[in-house]
């Protein structure tokens, strides 16, 4: 059994809402509200959910790119929350992030060599010649050519840019990569290239991924375990195959049934949810899903369900599964 590389406990990120004459705090947006999970060394944990569910905020909080409000993050035995800014920067050698938008996340004024070299310079690694050699190597690894080093981001297509984003994250040989919607902006034929690349790299370098996406088929494909988020909370967490063959939470069921299947013969029970995701500034009482849930009971409206093991490490936060 692989050990836990990342342990997250009761992570919270609240954003204040200011208002009134004096600009005082009139409320909070609970973007991430009491999220706990672990990621084992070498595995891929997927986080899936609709827009505004807090999946990206969770990913960024782990690297403290967004300062969490409270909670515990233990990475590789170190308590990340207690580190100083300086120590945190050193820590990020081992935890890197790949962003969604390959157009916005690369500096248009820097050529690829400069972009890829920068993490090494920041961490004071290698001589100039060594760094340049490493850039060349890395370009080959992600499926580009060494002559691409002198080009600028605008000369690349979306898929190539995402390869550069991945190469940049890999430059420091990290242990964990947080991939925040890495394939959402790509065309289908390019998406599969990048997914295959990420899997190859994981095997080759023993990487651990936290893979954040809204596309359930993509998450299912790449993840060992998947967490489903709704309004700042994880509502279900289990292995990828369990989640898809035996979803427990009504939200997961609805989400799975809403994905259009390209197979015209696929027969599925269709659950169409009514209404929209409620505002995280005014989340419903009790279970936050009760406003849209087809199985709502009186208890759901008042009592928040615990996130519990329903058997075999299949965690779910729903009153229906209290044994």
């Amino acid at each position, binding site marked *: 059994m692989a050990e836990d590389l990342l342990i997250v406990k009761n992570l919270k990120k609240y954003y204040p809402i200011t208002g009134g004459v004096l600009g005082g705090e009139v409320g909070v947006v609970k973007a991430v509200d009491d999220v706990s999970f672990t990621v084992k060394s070498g595995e891929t944990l997927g986080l899936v959910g609709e827009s505004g569910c807090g999946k990206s905020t969770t990913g960024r909080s782990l690297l403290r790119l967004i300062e969490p409000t409270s909670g515990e993050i233990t990475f590789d035995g170190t308590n990340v929350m207690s580190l100083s800014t300086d120590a945190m920067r050193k820590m990020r050698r081992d935890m890197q992030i790949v962003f969604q938008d390959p157009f916005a996340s690369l500096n248009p004024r820097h050529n690829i060599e400069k972009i890829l070299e920068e993490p090494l310079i920041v961490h004071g690694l290698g001589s100039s010649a060594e760094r340049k050699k490493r850039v060349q190597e890395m370009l080959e690894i992600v499926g580009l050519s060494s002559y691409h080093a002198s080009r600028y981001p605008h000369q690349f*297509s979306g898929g190539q840019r995402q390869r550069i984003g991945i190469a940049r994250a890999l430059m420091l040989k990290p242990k964990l990569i947080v991939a925040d919607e890495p394939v959402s902006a790509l065309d289908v034929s*390019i998406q*599969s290239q990048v997914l295959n690349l990420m899997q190859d790299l994981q095997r080759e370098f023993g990487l651990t991924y936290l893979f954040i996406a809204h596309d359930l088929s993509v998450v299912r*494909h790449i993840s060992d375990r998947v967490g489903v988020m709704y309004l700042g909370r994880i509502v279900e967490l289990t292995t990828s195959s369990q989640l898809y063959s035996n979803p427990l939470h009504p939200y997961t069921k609805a989400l799975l049934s809403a*994905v*259009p299947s390209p197979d015209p013969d696929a027969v599925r029970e269709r659950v169409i*949810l009514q209404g929209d995701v409620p505002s995280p500034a005014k989340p419903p009482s009790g279970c936050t899903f009760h406003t849209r849930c087809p199985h709502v009971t009186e208890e759901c409206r008042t009592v928040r369900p615990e996130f519990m093991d329903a058997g075999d490490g299949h965690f779910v936060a729903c009153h229906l599964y209290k044994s």
Partner: protein
Amino acid sequence: MSHPVLQIENLQTHFFTDRGQIPAVDGVTITVQKGEVVGIVGESGCGKSVTSLSVMKLVPNPPGRIVGGSIKFKGEDLVSVDEKRMRDIRGNEIAMIFQEPMTSLNPVFTIGDQIGESVRLHTKASKKDARARAIEMLKKVGIPRAEAIVDEYPHQLSGGMRQRVMIAMAMACNPELLIADEPTTALDVTIQAQILDLMRQLNREADTAILLITHDLGVVAEMCHRVVVMYAGNVIEQGDVRTILKNPKHPYTIGLLNSLPKLEGSQERLYSIPGNVPIPGSLTVGCRFAPRCDKVSDRCRSEMPELKVVGDNHLSRCWLTE
């Protein structure tokens, strides 16, 4: 069954830029029958959006221009009609909804004003009648509190609600053809399911033909009767939805289907089409898919294949299916 609402024939829409003439749409032929849902699928830059804009004659000119072919709407050639007639058709007989509902709604007018505008323009209805029609349409597309929403502004609504408003606006004059350009791409899956459900219902009840532009083969499977697959400005395969998704003939369609991660099934390595989507304008002789095709032969590199019948209502543009 043979009542074509829309017949696009050999449409060529080119863009005249500093880099030269770019054939964004290069000889596209598509027919939409009354009450039929036809999907156009393809990746970015394949010309699917330009095709739909050409039908509405909304391609920005300059730089874009329809340089050849015809677009017949109920027998009338839209390429040659003047702007005045086109304004009568737009919003009245052919309506369009776009991907990003926020940018296609005017932020300074109320929902009621915007739905009422097209009603008043096309039917000479009074302000009061237009407002009543707006409320009726909002109810039809499933918006709760329609009487209140009609006086609200777009920013007060969520993305899914805005797309419903767009659909209400498009359907207000009972068009015969609805062009939907990636109507659900910006929406979450649970909201997407609601919108697709609504569009199917409108198609059934009002018998409105829909030309649905999308990159999502799942959406195609759920919505369309017939599918047109485009690549680099050309139609490369066409047929009814079952045939295309179950028994595709063109290597690009096959590759596209194989590169989709599946919800059910294994986590095996995905098939991937090598190379990149071609940049429009960088076209070569021969089949446009040849540089990325794994079944490429010498003939593919030198000669462009024709769109040939390969089965019942099934067309493919490939030398292999000769």
